[in-house]
């Protein structure tokens, strides 16, 4: 299977549903903080925050959304060329006692999220950490699961999932390529 698995309207619907699920799970938007994991988790977090604010007007979409760069917490740094370090920005109130929702584009081995959990631990002590992802493609290597999933996408290991976002790539699409021929 190759091609577009999520179109732009699909993506919008998935983000809208996740926003509602987050509010339902946490009984509102109080103490919620969204942290996007660069590169593409960040625009997704911004979109999700805007959607939350649409549903719950009391939610401050810009003030409660941040970026969490996990480069320095990765466990595979020595296996790749040196990676540039991105910016980490937190809401001015910090994340202590907040409910932090980590936002990423593709959920795969779980190693990125493990690194993110370590990074969160160094930044404060949230009341709870939850995970929202646009695509879950399976093949976990760690006992980590997502709380909110846009689309479950069964894949084989040699397939490739690319998320394109208007903010970074000029279009909204999730594209599956490669795999057994």
């Amino acid at each position, binding site marked *: 299977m190759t091609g577009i698995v999520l179109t732009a309207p699909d993506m919008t619907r998935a983000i809208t549903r996740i926003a509602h699920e987050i509010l339902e799970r946490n009984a509102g938007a109080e103490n919620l903080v969204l942290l996007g994991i660069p590169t593409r988790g960040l625009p997704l977090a911004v979109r999700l925050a805007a959607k939350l604010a649409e549903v719950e007007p009391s939610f401050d979409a810009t003030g409660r959304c941040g970026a969490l760069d996990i480069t*320095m*917490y990765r466990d595979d740094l*020595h296996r790749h*060329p040196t990676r540039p*370090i*991105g910016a*980490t920005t937190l809401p001015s109130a910090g994340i202590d006692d907040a409910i932090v929702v980590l936002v990423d584009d593709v959920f795969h081995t779980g190693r990125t999220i493990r690194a993110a959990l370590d990074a969160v631990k*160094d*930044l*404060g002590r949230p009341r709870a950490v939850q995970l929202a992802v646009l695509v879950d493609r399976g093949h976990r290597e760690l006992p980590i699961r997502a709380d909110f999933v846009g689309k479950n996408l069964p894949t084989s290991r040699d397939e490739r999932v690319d998320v394109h976002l208007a903010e970074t790539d000029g279009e909204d699409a999730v594209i599956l390529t490669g795999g057994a021929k």
Partner: protein
Amino acid sequence: MKHLLGTKGMTREDAVLILDTAAQMAATQDREIRKLPTLRGKTVVNLFFEDSTRTRISFEAAAKRLSADVINFSAKGSSVSKGESLKDTALTLQAMGADAVVVRHWASGAAYQLAHGGWLHGSVLNAGDGTHEHPTQALLDAFTMRKHLMNTDGTGVDGKGLDGLRVAIVGDVLHSRVARSNMHLLTTLGASVALVAPPTLLPVGMDSWPVDVFHGLDDALDAQPIDAVMMLRVQRERMTGGGASFFPSPAEYTRMFGLDGQRMARLADNGIVMHPGPMNRGLEISAEAADSPRSVIVEQVANGVAVRMASLYLLLAGEEQS
């Protein structure tokens, strides 16, 4: 990058990468937990053949904030004072599994020799060699200037150089590796550099250097507005005494080259005052200048840790380079 030996020949791209990385490192130093796990399991050796508490503890703090193990090796009271050669010291460090060696040496070229002698497997960071180079000092100076002077349009300083800045380096250029490293780096980043020193404290053969030279701080201030003035330390032993003196008297030096409140007022509008430390208050810099709001001297120390963290990260974190 495998080694950090000097700023001469460093590309603008690499320099900006180090400064951008340092900015992210600096941001982590405002947190409650300042330690990062990035270099866990790596060993950094501080190999110091000259006393330098400031540079050593700066590198030590940088390595520890990145979770590397640090071994301090100072020449005094060690095998080196028993006559061990640089090669044998290097082989010893190699056998101990040093991933990086931070070296300060009184001989120009020692860091290069250590990096290219084939004795060490790890990276070499030059923390000052003779009168040659001191790249991390120049990088922290550039970082400080960029942060204070390049955010004119409010878009931040990431990715920027120092284009258009006018920097004056004042003092003992002859013996100063800081001046040399700064001159190369600042011009690579687009700044123009004026060297201000008595003729006795300028090296011969500097015709090819891309700088303007002045023999008095007033002349330099008259010639053009200065955005950053960097005061170099005058070494006590070079002041007076027999045929070894480089200028007639400390008082005369202060009169011609010292930075006081009046001269400071003639800097460009947002001009900053810098000093690599330790300062001789009352000699090259007055207390008024050193303690003024324009002075970024204490901040330079904090930025030094961030720049050294960035250097260690860029040299050590990625896959091994040959």
